[in-house]
């Protein structure tokens, strides 16, 4: 198992306080768990990513994945935790993008008073 912490400067000015704590995925074979939440100190402007990864992945590989993602969408200031169980780069990207999208969308708030609205809970699988 390898552990890394990547600290990237967030490209989005928005405060991380707007993020909804979100968890997706599972530490199962070929999958990973991704958690996104706001910083304890809202002033922080960095995306801090804590990674636990099985196998022989390297910090370079993870940096590369986040470079690719940030070309598609700006990273918000946030704390992200990744628990990876030998997921392929494709699955890794899908899960990270899923977590970011849900954390930044109001859909993650379960709609209590609208029974006909689909419940896109924080645990909704791809």
């Amino acid at each position, binding site marked *: 198992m390898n552990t890394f912490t990547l600290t990237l400067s967030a490209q989005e000015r928005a405060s991380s306080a707007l993020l909804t704590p979100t968890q997706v995925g599972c530490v199962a*074979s070929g999958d990973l768990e991704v958690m996104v939440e706001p910083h304890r100190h809202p002033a922080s402007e960095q995306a801090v990513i804590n990674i636990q990864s*099985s196998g022989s992945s390297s910090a370079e590989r993870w940096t590369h994945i986040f470079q690719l993602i940030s070309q598609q969408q700006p990273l918000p200031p946030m704390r992200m*935790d990744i628990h990876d169980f030998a997921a392929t780069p494709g699955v890794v990207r899908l899960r990270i993008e899923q977590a970011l999208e849900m954390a930044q969308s109001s859909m993650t708030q379960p709609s209590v008073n609208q029974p006909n609205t689909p419940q896109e809970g924080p*645990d*909704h699988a791809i």
Partner: protein
Amino acid sequence: MPSKHSVGVSMPVKKYVHFADLNARQRARQLLDEGSFHELLGPFDRLMSPWLTQQDIVSQSDDGVVIAQGCIDGKPTVIAAIEGGFQGGSLGEVAGAKIAGALELALEDNLAGIPTAAVLILETGGVRLQEANLGLAAIAEIQSAIVALREHQPVIGIITGPVGCFGGMSIAAGLCSYLLMTREGRLGLNGPQVIEQEAGIEEYNAQDKPFIWGISGGLQRYQTGFVDACTGEDLDAVREAVITVRQQGIPEHHRSDRWEHFLALLHTLDPAETMDAAVAKAMLTRTSAEDDTATGAQS
């Protein structure tokens, strides 16, 4: 007479949801009444296994167990759902303590006059071997908590998903007030691969799916009296079955009270005979009159 439905609002088409395809958190959420799901010790509490990391194994933020409070059919319920994908749904110190704690919470509710029942969604290989005795101790606590709570309100076990329910947690399942399985579920003390390893592939081929499900699958377990219902695979069928058994209240006799009956059946087993699904079913469905004869012959 005024219509009960407001004009212009079309009723949504009920979607088929395959219960086993949901992850543990979704199973708990969907089984509870809409909007009533309230998770305790969720992922952001980060109550993780302190032992896996020391053994170079990636851990999960909820240690593979989802605990939720809510209502089923309007009645207070606590749910513990085991995530089969994480370490084969195995229970270590934290995961086991979460389930035991949830059951104890329901017991406290009952002692305070709140009739909280418990639902256990069991997809588990039993003790997490990396946590050895701590896992065993945790499962013993779960079993004690089930026995304490079932005197007040039903403890309902559901077995579904690809992992099945094995090891110490199969004993916990046997202690439940009611046990539900889907056809896809499997229930046994030892898992098929363990038996194959011990008995040899000629005796027990873990790859032979019709044989394995014939012995330990939901339908066989229902037909031989080990579970109370073999439900359909969809969410609605599972939820309906939970509501139905809960309405029956505390059973007059718990399955585990009938241990003498099952033990007598086991005594009729001839280890020299090759076991298949039909032989197992015939043996386990003998009537009690035959039991007495069989027990008599043994003594």
